[in-house]
């Protein structure tokens, strides 16, 4: 009898006994029915404000509904339309580009910054930490309005370009068909770097200095040090940072709404913006719900993948 089998047998026997003895022998901390009473208040609020709307959204996504009259059942047509409509596919494509700018670039830059700081004592670190984190504190709408001015044809970026003699590169960044999406993405990079940096800084702070010293004694250079010491130590922080920033990228709405409104043309539309547009402007509530549900599913899926990456040794 292997250890595992033995355990199963004993625990089954124990369950029998405990049923007769009415849980008297259950160890403290083992879940009991009364636990449901403790979580009930939170569970009710969660169910009313989150689970119910979610289920309702799924339900609505199977209907063609204008928000006013009786909806008609269309099955999976709204979902099929998402795949068939090139404009919607483009919107999801734009969201994928934003993931690069919101999540991948800030994570990479944040890692480099944090490892540099971890290697050497930086004077005025508190000051830099605050400054880099500041964009996280500012409301996204304020960020968007500010960047709209920074990107304006006679805004600071173009002024600098003209000053250094690169006037040919100056343009209305948000009005350029090719550059509007990267321009919006750069705002996301600017916002996310702070979060990533602070998270990684906390992570590297836990690494004992001795590890670095040991690595140096073994002849490791800065890059080897980063790969062998820093990176494994901040794995959990990377998972957290990616989770938060990927969600931020995929649900981006306010930034696009304020800076470009999806333009020029449809160069910067994103799924969340389409949800708003369809539900409130076009009265296509079923289609809006279908996009919302799809987006939720994608976010969930990506986060499962990210969590899985974090688990691997």
């Amino acid at each position: 009898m292997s250890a595992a089998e033995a355990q199963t047998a004993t625990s089954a026997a124990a369950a029998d006994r405990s049923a007769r003895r009415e849980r008297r022998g259950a160890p403290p901390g083992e879940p009991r029915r009364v636990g449901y009473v403790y979580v009930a208040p939170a569970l009710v609020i969660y169910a009313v404000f989150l689970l119910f709307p979610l289920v309702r959204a799924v339900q609505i996504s199977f209907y063609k509904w204008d928000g006013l009259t009786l909806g008609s059942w269309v099955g999976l047509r709204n979902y099929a339309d998402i795949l068939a409509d090139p404009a919607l596919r483009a919107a999801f494509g734009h969201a994928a580009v934003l993931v690069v700018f919101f999540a991948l670039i800030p994570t990479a830059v944040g890692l480099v910054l944090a490892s540099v700081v971890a290697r050497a004592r930086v004077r005025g670190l508190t000051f830099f930490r605050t400054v880099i984190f500041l964009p996280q504190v500012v409301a996204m709408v304020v960020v968007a309005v500010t960047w709209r001015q920074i990107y304006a044809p006679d805004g600071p970026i173009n002024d600098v370009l003209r000053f250094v003699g690169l006037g040919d590169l100056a343009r209305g960044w948000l009005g350029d068909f090719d550059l509007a999406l990267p321009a919006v993405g750069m705002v996301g990079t600017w916002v996310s770097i702070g979060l990533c940096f602070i998270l990684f800084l906390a992570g590297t702070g836990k690494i004992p200095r001795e590890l670095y010293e040991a690595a140096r004694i073994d002849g490791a250079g800065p890059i080897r040090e980063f790969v062998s010491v820093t990176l494994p130590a901040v794995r959990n922080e990377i998972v957290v940072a990616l989770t938060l920033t990927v969600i931020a990228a995929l649900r981006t709405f306010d930034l696009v709404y304020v800076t470009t409104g999806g333009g020029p043309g449809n160069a910067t539309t994103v799924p969340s913006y389409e949800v708003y547009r369809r539900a409130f402007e076009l009265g296509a509530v079923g289609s809006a719900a279908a996009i919302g549900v799809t987006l939720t599913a994608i976010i969930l899926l990506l986060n499962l993948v990210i969590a899985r990456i974090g688990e691997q040794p």
Partner: protein
Amino acid sequence: MRRPHCVAVVLTALVIAACAPGSGSAGSDAGTPDGAGEINTDPASLGEVTLTVWDQEVRGGQDAQIEALNSAFQDEYPNITIERVSRSFEDLQATLRLAITDDEPPDVVQANNGRADMGAFVQAGLLTNLDPYRAAYAWPDRFPTSILSYSSYTEDGVTFGEGSLWGLPQMGEVVGFYYNKALLAQLGIDAPVTWDDLDAALAAAKAAGQLPLQFGNLEAWPGIHLFGAVQSRYTPADQIRDLGFGRPGAEWTTEENLQAAQTLVDWVDAGYVTPEFNGITPDDAWQAFARGEGVFMLGGTWLLADLMDAMGDDVGFTVLIAPGTDMPVATGGTSLPFAVTDATEDADAAAAYIDYITSSDAMKIVTEKGNLPVVEASEQQVSASLQGEAFAAWDAVTGSDGLLPYLDYATPNSYDLLTAQVQALMAGETEPSEFLEQLQAEYESFVGG
């Protein structure tokens, strides 16, 4: 963890199998013949009534006029209490659908003219047909047909611009050319009256090193106005009306519309419009115009107050005469019409309220607070020259039936299509013919289907 799982599955199945969305809404009793019975036009005899009114008149002068009219109405009819709920345009847009399908909707709502709003509400039977009140209050005596058509739909909500009346607006708005009087004087040019005059003025301004036309299209809606203006030069007014109201019988892919689209491209190529216009916000554009950057700027009368503040008597306003006619033609519309919900129990009081806030006396108050009254504009006393010019333009356009609908009224999807397409056209991403084909496809799929 088996049981809760099952519960969730069962719950989900129950909810999905439950009533379809919208089945509990107030619209389900549509079809009751409202207003078919006796109507009462004497508010004083209606007893104690509380009217809940949802409006979006939140900006300075607009808020002032509605507040003044509400209190005057309640003073005159103490038996009626107005409960005002005011929201910004966007907030109203986002919440009105929920409110109007509620079991107890507001009595009076400001509903945007277009198909996505008023048209959809009519279709769903959520508004009261105002035809009986139109006759009782003799509104057509004071309101020109072109104005009433902006709040008219057939009873099934399918045809826009004709049929029954569902609301009444307070203010007018027309899109015309603002011009910088000082810069025009420097160029030695009079204010343009015809499109040829404008051509000459634009060329002269460019030759003199001035920016001919200030234009900022980052928010994309000014593009609709600019295209609409140029289109009114080439395309006959009745065709534009059919296109704008989304009625069958017209075509986008005509020689005239192609000329209009090509003109916009030519203007960009000739350097007539602000460089990098797709990256400039409309607010930045009018502020630049107020600083003297640009001889002309196309804009609506909603900019009157701001430009008067900024430029004083240095700014003028004009609408141009269509070639081959002697009447000015311009894109324009009304402020959001006030409509009566279907579920209200006080339709008589609601209609009386709407009549009161659109009466001749009300038009005076609307003017006093700095707005453009929808009717009787030429009878108002105004001191500032710009206001006088705008009022005269409005009267000339509506008086000669030269008011053209905003092109985005056509179909629920037109706004997004047109804004995106004009941006692409003027940026050189789309050829004029391609541009028109896109619009034609949308128009065909709408009127054909």
